């Protein structure tokens, strides 16, 4: 966990917030951030109190996120991953930017497309690969796959497949913080599709009325499996849902890592100071199919091409270079560090043992406590 994340410099970033909800015409696409001039809103110079190192780290984490996902994709195609493999290409800024705004004592609940969150929270790469590969060395010991992993020492709570179910759970984490008077924040993520499920509503309503230190990042990546947002929800913006819970709703360019970081950091600070939850809609695009088996033939090619221009990594890298915040040698060093780390961790994980069959019967119940022990 980078110590830098504790930086408290006041942010001047003003995430777009429109408070009048509009009724969207049916069929119209949800609003998207403008293309072109990436990160244009940010002032010159190292922005918002982030150090040069921190700015580099953001790029490193996004690169790592993409390289990890790409390697997972390769392993899947090689038949080495027997379960689902969900990528997050195009959404790296959402995961990395948001998780980067948390502090080590905070707790996060990442979803399937949040490998970047898990990496930002510092899970050992080898153990992460091992989870996809079903190895005994992974956080689930092969009992669950992909990003379905948790590690409380890193403040990571594992998701279940059932969409939105993590929202009440992380609200409950926040409730524990509040009841105990701890200045810690709980955060989780949801998709445009997952926002339709009941637990989204119950969890956010409870968090709102109890003013829990809770942040929900809604990644509007235009699709839920094959379903476009226009068939998922008639609201003009997903952030419009916030008003129904009496909490701020913020829409942010999800392909701008700094914009995501600052919007989430404001929300995290707000939560930490006892001012309740925030819903942040990060508008982005799922650049591949739902999972590796899906060629996403239902997504218009033009839409993908359009979003390709807003690639969060390329944009950010360009911006760093343009502002002379990163030198070419630094760039190369980062790229090769990422490649090296991925290669090594993947190799190690592939050599890790599978769990033994009979071990499957253990650990259904936790031991200890009078009920269990007597």
């Amino acid at each position, binding site marked *: 966990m980078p110590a830098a994340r504790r930086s408290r410099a006041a942010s001047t970033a003003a995430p777009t917030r429109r408070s009048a909800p509009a009724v969207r015409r049916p069929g119209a696409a949800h609003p998207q951030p403008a293309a072109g001039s990436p990160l244009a809103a940010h002032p010159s110079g190292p922005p918002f109190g982030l150090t040069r190192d921190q700015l580099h780290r953001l790029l490193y984490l996004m690169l790592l996120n993409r390289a990890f996902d790409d390697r997972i994709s390769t392993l899947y195609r090689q038949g080495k991953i027997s379960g689902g493999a969900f990528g997050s290409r195009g959404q790296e800024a959402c995961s990395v930017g948001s998780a980067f705004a948390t502090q080590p004592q905070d707790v996060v609940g990442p979803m399937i497309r949040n490998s970047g969150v898990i990496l930002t929270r510092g899970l050992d790469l080898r153990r992460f690969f091992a989870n996809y590969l079903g190895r005994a060395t992974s956080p689930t010991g092969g009992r*669950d796959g992909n990003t379905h992993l948790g590690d409380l020492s890193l403040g990571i709570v594992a998701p279940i497949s059932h969409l939105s*179910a993590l*929202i009440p*759970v992380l609200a409950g984490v926040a409730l524990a913080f509040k009841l105990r008077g701890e200045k810690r924040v709980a955060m989780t993520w949801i998709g445009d599709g997952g926002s339709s499920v009941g*637990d989204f509503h*119950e*969890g956010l309503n409870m968090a709102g009325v*109890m003013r829990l230190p809770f942040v929900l990042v809604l990644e509007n990546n235009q699709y839920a499996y094959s379903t476009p947002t226009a068939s998922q929800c008639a609201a003009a913006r997903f952030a419009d849902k916030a008003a129904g819970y009496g909490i701020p709703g913020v829409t942010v360019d999800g392909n701008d890592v700094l914009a995501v970081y600052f919007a989430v950091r404001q929300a995290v600070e707000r939560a930490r100071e006892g001012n309740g939850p925030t819903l942040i809609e990060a508008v982005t695009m799922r650049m591949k199919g739902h999972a590796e088996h899906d060629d996403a033939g239902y997504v218009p090619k033009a839409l993908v091409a359009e979003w390709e221009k807003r690639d969060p990594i390329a944009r950010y890298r360009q911006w760093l270079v343009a502002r002379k915040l990163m030198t070419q040698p630094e760039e190369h060093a980062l790229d090769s560090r990422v490649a090296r780390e991925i290669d090594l961790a993947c190799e190690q994980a592939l050599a890790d043992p599978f769990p033994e069959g009979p071990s499957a019967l253990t650990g259904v*119940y936790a031991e200890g406590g009078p009920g269990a022990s007597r």
Partner: protein
Amino acid sequence: MRAAEQSPGAGQGPQAEEPTYIQGITEALREELQSDPNVFLIGEDIGTYGGAFKVTKGFLQEFGPARIVDTPISESAIVGAATGAALMGMRPVVEMQFIDFISCGWNQIVNMAAKLHYRWGPSVPITIRGPSGGYTHGGPFHSENPEAWFCHVPGLKVVAPSTGWDAKGLLKAAIRDPNPVIYLEHKFLYRRIRGPLPGPDTVVPIGKAEVKRAGTDASVITYGSGVHLALEAAAELARQGHSVEVLDLRTLRPLDLEAIVATVEKTGKVLILHEAHLTGGVGGEVAALIAEHAFERLDAPVMRLASADTPVPYSDALEQFVLPDAARVRQALESLLDY
């Protein structure tokens, strides 16, 4: 702390001066709140109002809003939030206003809470309790006995006390257990059953059945409201010279196989009795265990008596017809004794 060897309170007939079953629940909650700062209660109308059945009356004043958490109407979020708080080291006790509403928290229970420890390690010490059962004209949505559903979920424990003693002792065990426990209290018994309560250091262990009445000619294996019907029928049959044993399962997951086999070994004749619907009920599992583990010792077919396979209707005659009663228990036992 000592475990109860033999819990008093069943089959002794009501004694007006003794505490009620529901007081056992209240005492357990109060004592656990007092002794463990990580315990807190969460549910609808449990604070200001003290709960729909007044189980937590006065608790808000006594323990304050950081221990007694009133929520919006959101069973799924309540269970989910309890799970999240448990991950942070708390021991939340959830009240369902009626146990029927637990169906709204189903997914959080069976997929999130029940599977969590197995999947990635942390324990989930949550207790979900609420008034179950019929005989109160509650109709199709206030009479449910949902235990069988939960008994099919690895990772859950399920308990269903029949006496105040067990109600208190099992609730304390449930709260201290590191796993999610479904605690089914029977609202018909709330103020109708009286008897002694264990002291603050006694728990009734999860997983241990108890012989509530010893006998030699036939066994009733039952729990919850069924225990009282069985004791009534056994008492009547005793007058006719029959000796009927009543085994109170108390815990439905994990079942106490040893105690089940022991009573079959002893009597050779078994009636399984429960208030939940017959088909797919816990009785099937018990019958299967007997068929597998005590087959040679059976002197008669294993019989089951349970609620009819219908929703629980509202009007008196209908409800009575659907739910088991002592007369039918006696009849079933008579035919078993005659076998």
